[in-house]
């Protein structure tokens, strides 16, 4: 049901046959340890049909920003793990919304409010189908992955995690899946246990399993490491946790843009990603949660739209997802994210993954050919992220000199300081590829690295 389909250009047209959101969903028990490998396993990425490769030049024409020149060189944008660029169709969707559809949602009975509400809920269903969630009420719009994880910490953690309880996280987590849990531990007296990685940047699953005990109450794991590109065996990790009755949150910020994600196959209790890494705008993202768990949680923010009735004696909270969407949400951004997902699905997530994998393999081989350059993170299963170090050159100098060549990479600790500490480096340079990058751009990166080495020779 989550298979990419070639939809007509304008897929945001109202669909009156869609049932209303606030239906009472009977919750059936979900199987916790499904063995299906469909969709998100890295070895499927090579399943590109060679008869229909990605037409990268046609795709690039959809992105006006890729025509920019920087320092008199064509822009080579290789910072997609930080944020991706937006195609014209999404920009047009924003313009259309703001010029013809905008009003506040879920409130008034006038035409514009009903139109905006409709488009917002259409976007929610697009997000639901994108990750194959069972129901649209399991999709909560947040400002991004960070807010989604904070929502789970406040809504689930503060209600159900107590002193002495343990939360399992991994060395590969982004700060956004570390700091909220540290805040919770400080408040409650719970403890964090950390899954280490090997030299290749892969989680030690034996140690992960050994960390479980009767005090383990929660697992947070990143699907794909933003710093190293490692694809974690989350299906296996979720099954192991569920067999011990422990819920799992998956940080999908780097996975959702690059792999086909099916939350029912994964079986995860929570899944989060950010819109701006998916060719959408900043300020919007999503939390998926199983309906039953979301219903058991306490609200995270109080305000308008998250209530059924308010008196000073007693307030009744709204049903999910509205219980967690207090105040006026970023309506335009949510609708634009829906348009961005339509755009990606028109291309096909399998094709995107296959093309990015080709870029990864080519870039890895090219960098390995360079003397004095070392790739940090050499996991067997990787997404199109390459962290690297050049002997004797600080990453910030690499970043500035590559910028001089028009090449945009990220330099720094990538909000993943535990990973940096593991490799005993303060920072790395990171090239991260998207489906609109080309082999020629990999060559430009390699040429840029040679320039850096020449300056420092």
């Amino acid at each position, binding site marked *: 049901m989550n298979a990419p389909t070639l939809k007509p250009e304008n897929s945001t047209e109202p669909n009156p046959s869609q049932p209303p959101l606030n239906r009472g969903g009977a919750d059936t028990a979900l199987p916790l340890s499904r063995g299906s490998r469909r969709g998100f396993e890295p070895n499927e990425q090579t399943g590109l049909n060679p008869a229909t490769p990605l037409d990268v030049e046609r795709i690039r024409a959809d992105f006006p920003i890729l025509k920019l020149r920087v*320092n008199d060189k064509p822009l080579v944008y290789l910072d997609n793990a930080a944020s991706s660029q937006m195609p014209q169709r999404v920009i047009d969707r924003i313009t259309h919304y703001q010029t013809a559809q905008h009003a506040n949602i879920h409130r008034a009975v006038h035409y514009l409010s009903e139109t905006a509400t409709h488009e917002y809920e259409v976007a929610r269903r697009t997000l639901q189908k994108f990750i194959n969630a069972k129901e649209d009420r399991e999709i909560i719009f947040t400002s991004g992955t960070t807010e989604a994880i904070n929502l789970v910490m406040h809504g689930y953690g503060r209600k159900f995690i107590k002193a002495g309880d343990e939360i399992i996280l991994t060395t590969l987590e982004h700060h956004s899946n570390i700091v909220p849990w540290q805040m919770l531990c400080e408040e409650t007296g719970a403890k964090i246990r950390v899954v280490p990685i090997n030299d290749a940047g892969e989680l030690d699953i034996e140690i992960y399993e050994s960390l479980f005990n009767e005090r383990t109450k929660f697992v947070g794991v990143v699907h794909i490491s933003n710093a190293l590109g490692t694809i974690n065996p989350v299906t296996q990790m979720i099954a192991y946790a569920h067999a011990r009755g422990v819920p799992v949150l998956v940080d999908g910020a780097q996975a959702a843009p690059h792999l086909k994600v099916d939350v029912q196959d994964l079986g995860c209790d929570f899944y989060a990603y950010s819109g701006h890494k998916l060719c959408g705008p900043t300020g919007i993202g999503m939390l998926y949660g199983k309906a039953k768990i979301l219903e058991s949680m306490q609200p995270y923010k109080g305000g308008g739209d998250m209530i059924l009735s308010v008196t000073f004696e007693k307030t009744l909270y709204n049903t999910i997802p509205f219980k967690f969407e207090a105040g006026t949400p970023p309506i335009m951004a949510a609708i634009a994210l829906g348009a961005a997902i339509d755009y990606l699905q028109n291309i096909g997530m399998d094709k995107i993954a296959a093309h990015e994998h080709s870029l990864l393999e080519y870039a890895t081989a090219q960098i390995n050919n360079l003397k004095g350059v070392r790739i940090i993170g050499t996991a067997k299963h990787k997404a199109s992220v390459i962290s690297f170090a050049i002997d004797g*050159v*600080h*990453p*910030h*100098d690499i970043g*500035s*000199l590559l*910028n*001089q060549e028009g090449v945009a990479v990220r*330099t*720094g*600790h990538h909000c993943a300081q535990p990973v940096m500490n593991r490799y005993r480096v*303060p*920072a790395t340079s990171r090239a991260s590829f998207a489906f609109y990058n080309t082999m020629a751009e990999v060559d430009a990166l390699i040429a840029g690295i040679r*320039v850096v080495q020449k*300056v*420092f020779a």
Partner: protein
Amino acid sequence: MADMKALYQEVIMDHNKKPRNYGKLSPCTHHAEGHNPLCGDHISLTMNLSGNMADDKVEAIGFEGEACAICKSSTSLMTVAVKGKTRSEAEEIARDFLDMTTGKLDMNAPNKLARLTVFAGVRDLPTRVKCAILPWHTLRAAFNSVEEVSTEADGDPMHTT
């Protein structure tokens, strides 16, 4: 946009590879540590001043640390620029340097920077300004007997612009 490659070639060929006044003075009268937590730059500055008054001289200065080329060469050039100067002269240079790298200095008006103007181009790269000014922050901290200074502190000019 300044030509960063030219800046690198001019400064790095020289001061990054052969930093001047590299090492630690022991004993010393003044000392401070400078950190840039965003890129992990760290420098340690030691000085011997002839006294604690404004017209006392920087008789000796030394630095050590791990830093990017811009930070390291900026520190090296700073030690050359302030060695033998009085404290008030050094503070004037520091003020001009901070103004130059944050784009507030009229480069056509007279200033105390001399060869330090090679760093004028970093004002176009806000993330690199911190690398260039870290030694000057650290110098001020040492003068004022502040043990540690960070580019992320409230007094950082990057936070007030």
